[in-house]
């Protein structure tokens, strides 16, 4: 009786463990390797290029060092470049591949991230409206030199990554304590994604957005324990040099510019003239 119970318990435990492990094993996949070297036989050539269907010149060279440093370095090229064979690639093989692959190449393995992206503003622009400017995976993460998103290196690059399109926002961000600290090497401070989220980035007007009026206090509260609505009404992206951003902030900036200009000029002249007269009349010579 007790032996049978023990066996049952063991079986139950095994089932439970298997069930628990199931989601993990579902995303485990075998990485096909071995073909990369064959691709690099041509693609490591420094001047390999082609002219695409739009008549735009395109480099086909892979930076081998960058590739070896990437988080996907152990994967085979065809894991992403599905359908490519090790020979001269035919037009049927390559045509429209990029537009298709820039989305599906990643989603096979990164399904949950892709689902978040699918629901995001960027995702909607790319997949819903067919925008060619809005970013897909590779525009933020890169392609052959993808670094670990959890790494400091990637974190430090985020303002520039977002700033590639949102340049003005990057500038105003770098004018805040968050941005300044990151520039000075303290990358644990808030970067773009800490407030705006990642993959599922939504505009402020969307109630689901991390910076919507419903959520922004909680977003600030991730770091600022006692944040309230007034605290979160702090203007993060304010351009001090223009009145259209915030009239009052601009006026204060102008006020300082005038004060500094006038006082430094008058003070400087007073000192300079004093110094000049002193020299001229020999007042610095001590008897």
């Amino acid at each position, binding site marked *: 009786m007790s032996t049978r119970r023990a066996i049952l318990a063991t079986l139950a435990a095994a089932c439970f463990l298997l069930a628990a492990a199931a989601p993990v094993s579902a995303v485990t996949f075998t990485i096909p390797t071995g073909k990369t070297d064959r691709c690099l036989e041509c693609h490591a050539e420094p001047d390999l290029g082609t002219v695409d269907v739009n008549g735009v010149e395109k480099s086909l060279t892979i930076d081998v060092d960058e590739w070896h440093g990437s988080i996907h370095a152990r994967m085979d090229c065809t894991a992403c470049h599905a359908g490519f064979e090790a020979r001269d690639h035919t037009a049927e093989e390559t045509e429209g591949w990029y537009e298709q692959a820039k989305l599906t190449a990643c989603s096979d393995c990164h399904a949950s991230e892709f689902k978040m992206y699918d629901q995001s503003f960027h995702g909607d622009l790319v997949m819903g409206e067919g925008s060619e400017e809005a970013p897909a995976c590779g525009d933020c993460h890169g392609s052959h030199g993808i670094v670990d998103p959890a790494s400091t290196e990637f974190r430090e690059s985020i303002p520039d990554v977002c700033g590639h399109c949102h340049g003005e926002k990057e500038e105003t961000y770098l004018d805040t304590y968050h941005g300044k600290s990151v520039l000075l*090497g303290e990358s644990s401070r808030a970067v773009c994604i800490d407030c705006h989220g990642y993959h599922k980035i939504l505009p402020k007007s969307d109630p689901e957005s991390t910076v919507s009026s419903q959520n922004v206090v909680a977003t600030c509260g991730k770091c600022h324990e006692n944040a309230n609505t007034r605290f979160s009404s702090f203007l993060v992206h304010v351009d001090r040099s223009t009145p259209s951003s915030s009239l009052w*902030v601009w006026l204060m900036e*102008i006020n300082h510019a005038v004060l*500094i200009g006038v006082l430094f000029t008058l003070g400087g002249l007073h*000192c300079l003239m004093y110094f000049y007269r002193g020299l001229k009349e020999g007042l610095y010579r001590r008897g």
Partner: protein
Amino acid sequence: MASIDSGIRDKGAARDKGAARAPAPAAPKAVHAIVGARTHFRRFTAFQRWVHFFIMVSFSALVLTGMPLKYSDKAWAQTWMGFIGGVDNAGMIHRFSALIMVACVIAMLGFFLKILVQTRGRFWGPGSMVPNRQDYRDLKAMVSWFIGRSPRPKLQLDRYAYYEKGEFWAASGGVTIMCVTGAILWYPEVAARYLPGIVINFALVNHSGGALLAMGFVVVFWHFFHAHLRPESFPMDKAMYAGGLPLEEYAHERPAEYERLVTQGKLDEVLVAPVSERHMKIQNVVWWIITGAALFLWAVFCIFVVWVTYNWIISF
């Protein structure tokens, strides 16, 4: 007329005086530094010199830890910030120095309270920090000399000259703004409990602009010049560390105050013995180091501030 001077007789000076008059033979060590005739005029009390010292040290630390944050996109700021141990370290030093500065402000407020009580509310008048018509006339005479319209004026200065009064009030206003905005930036969540969020923006702009203004004014365009590079004080005005200076020298530099004290019969109250030669030598070494650093920084910051101001103004 009541004057400030009645308010600055501190206990230290009273001790100096007593000891100089009747040196106690039982305690030769205590007498050592103050032995001798009271030939010197006490320009600054020990209290004032210590406050100046702490403001000087904390101000320097505040500038050195704050400026790299203001210019965080510049290579020199990033290098310097790395050298002083990163943003967090700099922030700690900055806040600690700010507390020292606040302590100095509180000490000075206490000092003014003392003056208010001792002068029964009449804190203005000759010898005070309150600007008057004579200051305006002095300034006019100096400018007239600068532009070559008249020979060098022999200013009948009282305790504080116009350039000292101007700096005092500019610094008082500046330190108030820096303390208030600094406190908001230190505890933004607390500030937002009572004030709208844009006040944090205001604090940022004013703390940053005020810092440049203060640094430029202290280091380049005013204070360093008057304390170190003015013909009368070159290479340094020793009164701020020695406390006293020879009476005849002082009577020459601040004739109005000297006359006033003589007519009021109060001169005796502000006479002190000079510090001993050994004491003076030690002070000299320390203060030459500080002066050397000051003059070096002056040269560096002159270039820096001119460059920054130029860049800022052309950005509009």
